[in-house]
């Protein structure tokens, strides 16, 4: 009788039932669409962060170098002459190949890696060295440092490629060729962490433990193409004494877009020796035991390594800008509240219409009470009808949700994400690796060279901005089983709320009053 009565009643007021179901369906569909779009944006964000951050790495630890510091600096053989009364002798040849950490990241003790690895809730920790190799070659010209109120210095910059000083042919820089590329020292024993964790070997092989002390290198695919390097080629890497060591290229590695990969990877121990940074690293990669521990681990590291910058994905996410960030904001704010508002409106509509339907059936319910039906049974009957409409609304809503998600997938523009530049920032791996953009700002800058004067090399690396990493992601709004279950649950909840109001109205009817209204 229960189901027969429900089906007959819904058939009788089919138009109203369809109207309520569509109202609920619109609300549910919007919730599904917004949730799917939000999940899509989150996935895109995760993908971006994944690219910028590295697989398996939850936290990175760095320390910003003191202002004005050049780290262990670049010596070009005549640095000591700058600022002194003696100058490089005109006509003397310069050919320096230097490996240095530059001035952005300060050194961290390797023992910090061990200490962090032993912390509670830390699954693994690995050290890394982010270095820059510079080759400067040329002949020292005759100089006049006082002309032009600045002058001097090297114009242009590295940018990771080969640059020769351009601009005024009479400038100092015009006489030198400059090559620069980035070098990462990789902790081979903890290869799952660190800069290589997101890369894929496109040819050759990756490092093995046997490579720990070998002069072997992996080269980034883009850099390899640009410089015509392949497996078996050799690449010269400098050291702290301005001489070069030839490394054999054993593999070509492709990093995800936006990762700002280093150009060359060499074993950490070898990098430490070359850069004269034995027992030092400048980036520590950490994996927490589980995602819930990341915050507490980050906090512990901050205390254990005073002065360090501890970065996790949340920190990085806050630095991501671009249309992904806008879409996330749109989905999380406007979309969420719009969905809630429509859902509440549809619940209210369903409740009001159900109550109106109960009011129209006063005589019917009065008769049933006169026949001995308990109020509870009548309330269940009303709620059953409302829930049936809710389920229909849920089905409609799921359909609309799929359609909405499909529309989002079809018509949404590709999302871009950028990691904001930050001159003193957190030195996350994605940014900290990138030293290429700085060049030699002290050169023939339009203003006359802020870094010029009698120190043409000042700030060459200490001021290196962390250049933005930019990634384009296509939004895919997934409609998951979980979303569908939640949506159907919401629809049933809507039905229950509407039924509760209607049932409450029906339960309050006194049979005599109900019958007297028509008698």
């Amino acid at each position, binding site marked *: 009788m229960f189901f027969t009565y429900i089906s*007959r009643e819904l058939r009788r007021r089919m138009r109203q039932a369809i109207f309520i179901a569509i109202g609920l369906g619109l609300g549910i569909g919007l919730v599904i669409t917004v949730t799917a779009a939000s999940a899509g944006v989150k996935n895109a964000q995760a993908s971006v962060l994944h690219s910028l951050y590295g697989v398996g790495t939850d936290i990175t630890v760095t320390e910003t170098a003191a202002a004005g510091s050049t780290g262990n600096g670049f010596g070009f053989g005549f640095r000591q002459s700058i600022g002194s009364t003696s100058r490089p002798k005109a006509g003397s040849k310069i050919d320096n190949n230097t490996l240095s950490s530059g001035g952005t990241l300060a050194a961290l003790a390797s023992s910090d890696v061990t200490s962090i690895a032993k912390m509670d809730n830390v699954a693994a920790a690995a050290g890394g060295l982010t270095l820059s190799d510079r080759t400067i070659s040329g002949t020292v010209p005759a100089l006049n440092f006082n002309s032009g109120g600045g002058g001097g210095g090297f114009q242009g910059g590295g940018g990771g490629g080969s640059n020769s000083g351009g601009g005024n042919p009479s400038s100092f820089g015009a006489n030198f060729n400059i090559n620069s590329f980035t070098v990462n020292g990789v902790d081979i024993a903890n290869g799952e962490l660190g800069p290589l964790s997101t890369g894929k070997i496109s040819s050759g092989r990756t490092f093995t433990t046997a490579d720990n002390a070998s002069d072997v290198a992996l080269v980034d695919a883009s850099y390899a193409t640009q410089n015509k390097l392949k497996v078996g080629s050799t690449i010269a890497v400098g050291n702290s004494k301005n001489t070069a060591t030839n490394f054999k290229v054993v593999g070509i590695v492709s990093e995800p877009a936006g990762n700002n990969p280093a150009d060359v990877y060499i074993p950490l121990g070898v990098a430490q020796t070359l850069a004269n940074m034995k027992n030092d690293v400048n980036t520590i990669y950490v994996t927490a035991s589980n995602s819930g521990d990341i915050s507490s681990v980050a906090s512990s590291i901050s205390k254990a390594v005073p002065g360090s910058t501890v970065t996790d994905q949340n920190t990085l996410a806050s630095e991501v800008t671009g249309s992904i960030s806008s879409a996330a904001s749109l989905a999380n704010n406007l979309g969420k509240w719009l969905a809630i508002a429509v859902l509440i409106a549809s619940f209210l509509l369903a409740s009001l219409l159900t109550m109106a339907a109960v009011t129209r059936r006063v005589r019917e319910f009065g008769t049933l009470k006169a*026949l001995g039906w308990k109020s509870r049974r009548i309330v269940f009957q009303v709620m059953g009808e409302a829930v049936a409409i809710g389920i229909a609304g849920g089905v409609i809503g799921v359909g609309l949700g799929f359609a909405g998600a499909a529309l989002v997938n079809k018509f949404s523009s590709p999302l871009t994400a950028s990691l904001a530049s930050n001159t003193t920032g957190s030195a996350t791996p994605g940014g900290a690796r990138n030293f290429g953009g700085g060049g030699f700002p002290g050169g023939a800058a339009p203003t006359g060279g802020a870094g010029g004067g009698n120190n043409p090399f000042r700030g060459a690396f200490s001021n290196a901005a962390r250049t933005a990493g930019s990634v384009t992601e296509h939004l895919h709004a997934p409609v998951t089983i979980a979303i569908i279950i939640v949506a159907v649950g919401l629809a049933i909840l809507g039905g229950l709320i509407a039924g509760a109001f209607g049932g409450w109205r029906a339960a309050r009817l006194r049979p005599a009053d109900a019958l007297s209204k028509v008698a």
Partner: protein
Amino acid sequence: MYKLTNVTKDYPKGRETVHALRGVNVEIPDGEWLAIQGPTGHGKSTLLQILGGLDRPTSGSVDFDGRDLARTREAQMTKVRADSIGFIFQTFNLIPTLSALENVETALVPLGVSGASRRARAAEALNSLGLGDRLRHLPTELSGGQQQRVAIARALVKEPKVLLADEPTGNLDEDTRDEIIGLLEKLWQDNGLTMVIVTHDSSIARRAQRLGTMRNGKLTVKQTV
């Protein structure tokens, strides 16, 4: 049997209080047919609702088989209605979405009768009233007389002790009226029902054993025979 003692019923109407019943005293023995007449608005339907446990008196007692319906809890009152009292209304009050058979079944739902037994008893009741070929028809597909017969079947299918009818022929033509009253009289005789009928129709009232007249909330009862 019923025994009403000093039953009053007041209810508010705007700022005023309507005194629908003003000290009704009456006894209705088991198996009696009592007809109640009187002008509109003088308390006939109110009295019927109090007899049926659809409403409670403002004061006084309504003794029904040793139970005071004026003080019985709602759950017990519902059970009394389900078990012992059948109602027939002027407007039939059939559920419009349910068939004739299902309408009759609704009277057996509160008694917890199983589905198959419910359908069998409902079909039997309709058959006995000459509606065997109308079981699947909706109320709108039946004539007024047929609808009232369905309502009678619904009232009697649970074999109640009391049948209360409020203007059962008020919406019927003369021929159908005679048919329905003849039917009710036969059922009363065959089943030993206690039957209280509120009616404006004197020809019906004269067929009852006793005739009550309601005026200004007061009831006077006399023998018709």
